């Protein structure tokens, strides 16, 4: 954890001094590809310069502490959703034979380890949903950040050509989740893989 914070901090400091790493605008209304998932966002978003993995892209509306829209695309057999940063907290790997219950656990544990392994995430309401014209599924997430802030989330997932695609929205339970979920749903409905 210390190392992680230190690394993030130094990275942030250096990049901000260099002035090269910035959030960029994702304008509303035009189709954009995020890691192989093409969506047409109904409102403007900010794309984060953070790098959580080669196949991960993060957008935020009000700041990453308040809401995050995470795109994970084209995860193949044996690959992890996020890159591992701590040997003691390995990221679980995707397996092409996985069914919805397994993907639910995969997303849950990946997100937990991303937060240093010290939060408990509950998932619920797993159900089928159409994702980019094919059979996919969605589920909800509930957890407390280490700070004690309550978060909620919605995950949309599909396995296509043995590769996993996920759109994961998490936000503060108060205000931010409910405020942005309808927009996120519209964005999800526009998704094409």
């Amino acid at each position: 954890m210390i190392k992680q914070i230190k690394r993030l901090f130094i990275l942030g400091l250096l990049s901000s001094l260099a002035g090269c790493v910035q959030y960029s605008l994702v304008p509303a209304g035009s189709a954009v590809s995020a890691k192989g998932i093409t969506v047409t966002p109904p409102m403007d978003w900010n794309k984060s310069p953070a790098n959580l993995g080669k196949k991960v892209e993060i957008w935020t509306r009000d700041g990453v502490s308040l809401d995050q829209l995470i795109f994970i695309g084209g995860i193949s057999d044996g690959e992890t959703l996020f890159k591992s940063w701590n040997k003691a907290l390995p990221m679980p790997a995707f397996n092409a034979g996985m069914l919805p219950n397994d993907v639910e656990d995969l997303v849950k544990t990946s997100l937990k380890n991303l937060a240093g392994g010290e939060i408990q995430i509950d998932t619920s309401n797993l159900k089928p949903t159409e994702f980019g014209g094919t059979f996919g599924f969605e589920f909800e997430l509930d957890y407390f950040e280490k700070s004690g802030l309550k978060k909620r989330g919605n995950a949309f997932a599909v396995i296509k050509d043995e590769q996993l695609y996920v759109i994961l929205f998490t936000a503060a339970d108060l205000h931010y989740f409910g405020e942005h979920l309808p927009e996120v749903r519209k964005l999800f409905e526009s998704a094409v893989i």
Partner: protein
Amino acid sequence: MHTLTHRLLGLVMASLVSNAVAAATSYPPAFDPGYRPEASSDEGGFWYQVDKLERDIQHSPFVVTDPALNDYVGNMVCKLAGDYCSDIRVYVIENPHFNAAMFPNGMMHIHSGLLLRVESESQLAAVLGHEIGHYLRSHHLKQWRGLRDGAGVSMVFDMLLTGGLMTWAVMAGNSSFGRNQEIEADAIGANLMHASGYAPVEAANLWRYVDAEQKADSSRQASSVFFATHPQPKERIAKLEAHISQLPETGNTLKNNGLIEKIMPLYRTFMANHLEMQEYEQSELLLAKHEEMGYPEAEVRFFRGELHRLRNQPGDQDLAVDAYTASLKLDNPVPDAHKHLGYLHLRKKNNTEALSHFRNYLALAPDASDKQMIEFYINSLESKND
């Protein structure tokens, strides 16, 4: 040659032991019950920070609030701590790691991962007694002062980044000072157990298990914070046993006394967290221990199934099917076993079995939150059967 060496070692050990006992009897508490430092002192500043942390903990979602479990642990602390009972406040923290913590202001943390690993009330008493030992001897304050006065300039950057105390924690671990404190706390813990009717030998047994668990998981040893800050179990067990052998025999064998019953309402949550660590060799050992201890077998078998399903290495799917199936034949089965069996059979294209398990799952858990998903599979399997 070997014998001679052993004899010599034996002599050295014997003299160490008598020293230890002499020292044990001279471990007076560093303060009286009800103590509070002056706000203007450095200790007052230390307490201030820890008091603040305790207020955060009181609002923390990671504190287990189950009243029966809290009463159980709280009563044990009182039994062990005697006059200091009302100075110590215990918080059970949901965290799968094997750990407990004591703070200078009397706040004590017990991790859920520790509760899962102790096999008797005496073993839990060993941990509580050890923590009370740290507390009574003001070990934190000594470490903190030692670090403050001896800290090198290389720490400055760390401090700036982490806000001070975290660095203290990491540095403390590397000093033999910290290890000697652990040994001292072990001895005090054994004395308190002895005085309260517990079997001190269980302290050594707990360390033996921790040692085995550590060996079962060689990959993580190097990175384990715990063993960087603690004596190696072998050294620890030897010192403890030497110390215990000097305590007068009482025939104490206090065993479970409701430990399992108190943990059971939270068992599924605690075990699910343990499995999420993905330290599957550890989980295997733990489940074997639970089976031996008499945790409800249907639950233990279910989590064996979970272990294999989540590990998902070659052969694990079959082992998961076996474990879930076995758990369903026992009293009070876990409905989720049917669900996961449904999915596992679906993967194997055993459609008839899949369909029957999905139906059984919804029959046992008609309000399951994933009902729509399961109904989808039931419908598609039924249409295949037609």
